[in-house]
């Protein structure tokens, strides 16, 4: 006796064109040249990395004239070690670290950044990290995130920052 059929798999295939906005495109060009840029809001002075093309707080449009460069190093403010859930299309198989990082010169963190070159059990809040460039810039550039130009982040060896420096930058 065979089991009764309870599920029939119906896979729907829809194609979407990924369009990067002019702001994201400019950011990507800068990343390919090894520069991490943001937009500084002319009203509140906050520096958004990656740039959005506007300040969501003041609702002011920003453009290249508001562009500032930030350092490719910063402070890890919080993190998680992910055990990847397996689903159709998932390529991640091994555990990995995802961290929020406050770059030097930026007002807010960049989220979900890979940190490598350190045992997972030694990753900690307040740890200083630096970018490891040389990734494939065509990977992961969907108009958000930091594009693939940075492979991942690794400890910079500088002393850890105290709690006051990172605890207001969980996100």
């Amino acid at each position, binding site marked *: 006796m065979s089991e009764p059929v*309870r*599920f029939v798999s119906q896979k*729907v295939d829809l194609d979407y064109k990924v369009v990067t906005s002019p702001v994201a495109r400019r950011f990507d060009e800068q990343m390919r040249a090894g520069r991490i840029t943001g937009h500084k809001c002319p009203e509140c002075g*906050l*520096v*958004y990395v990656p740039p959005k093309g506007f300040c*969501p*707080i003041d609702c002011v449009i920003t453009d290249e004239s508001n562009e500032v460069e930030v350092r490719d190093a910063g402070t890890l*403010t*919080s*993190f*998680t*070690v*992910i*055990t*990847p*859930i397996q*689903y*159709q*299309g*998932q*390529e*991640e198989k091994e555990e990995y670290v*995802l*961290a*929020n990082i406050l770059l030097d010169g*930026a*007002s*807010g963190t960049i*989220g*979900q950044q890979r940190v490598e070159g350190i045992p*997972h059990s030694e990753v900690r*809040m307040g740890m200083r990290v630096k970018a490891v460039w040389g990734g494939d810039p065509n990977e992961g550039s*969907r108009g958000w995130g930091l594009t693939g130009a940075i492979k991942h982040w690794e400890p910079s060896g500088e002393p850890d920052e105290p*709690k006051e420096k990172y*605890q*207001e*930058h*969980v*996100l």
Partner: protein
Amino acid sequence: MSSERVAVVGCGQTHHRKVRDDLSMAGLLREAAERALADAQMDWKDVDAVVIGKAPDPFEGIMMPEIYLADALGCAGKPIMRVHTAGSVGGSTAVVATHLVSSGVRERVLTIGFEKQSEGDTTWGLGGGRSGSVGAGGYFAPHMRAYIDRSGAPDYIGPAVAVKDRRNALKNPYAHLKLENLTIETVMESPYVWEPVRRLESCPTSDGAAAMVLTNEKGATEGAAWVHGTAIRSELGQFPGRDPVNPRGGRDCAADVYSQAGITDPFNEVDVAEIYVPFSWYEPMWLENLGFAAEGDGWKLVEKGVTDITGELPINVSGGVLSSNPIGASGMLRFLEVALQVRGLAGEHQIDGARTGVGHAYGGASQFFAMWVVRNEKP
């Protein structure tokens, strides 16, 4: 103008399970809706309007499923609206439904939230079909780590919440997870999924639906729950200095709804609360955010057993999101369970003499909030 009073006269939910392969999507909604209608002593034809909520459409792979569900929900010739506010959607759907009645626009509204996770893939949906989707837990884990770091809470607090909610679920016939003999040790031995959160500290994936019938005063039946306040708040998901651990949107939402209900001391004036805790550490975090505990003190209530079913402020006595998570229904279940409590109909997990209940849901990057206060008496 003054608003119409709103009564919760019908509550219905499915038996939430990992897979409800005995029912289609429409059948799942009807199981909850028919139970709510029966509770309200109503029939489909008595319903003026339907308000339906669910989480992102890519979770089941159907665009605007309410278009198809209109038939099963008896909507031909009637209005149906679809709400979507991420995880908070079950709560905000109930709020939209409440507004339809309190505004005087409709008299009898059926509101329903659902998710049939077994007929799709949530993690796939969250990633828009791309690799590297970390799921909600992966997104929230750094926030929970920050809470632990900031509050100095001992590591067993999260596991303690996981044990408490699963014990409560054993008393709730509708709950999905039925984990007997769970202890803090067994939770702590379960593997990390998104460290610092372990598998047993995370919500399950469930199929399920929740439905309520709301009426104006004219349509109210004996033993109804009365809505004393509703509030929603949205805040930007990410900007420099935003605090996802104790977000202002949640604080403002709570302050708004308490003020409508005349609550000045939530810890002492609320008899029972159902708050949205999909990962264990959110219980102490939201206890602080919603004003039940001072900042940094939420975990102490957990440690002292204050939030147990026998404690001074029972939280998630239904088993909560940690025991059943049909996402689009999860927020509505919080609202529904406190309505059941003040109606005295919660069965084995009833809190004796519960008069004031608070329902809460959150979503997105801890940026969408919905709450209500219900009582056994008219406002």
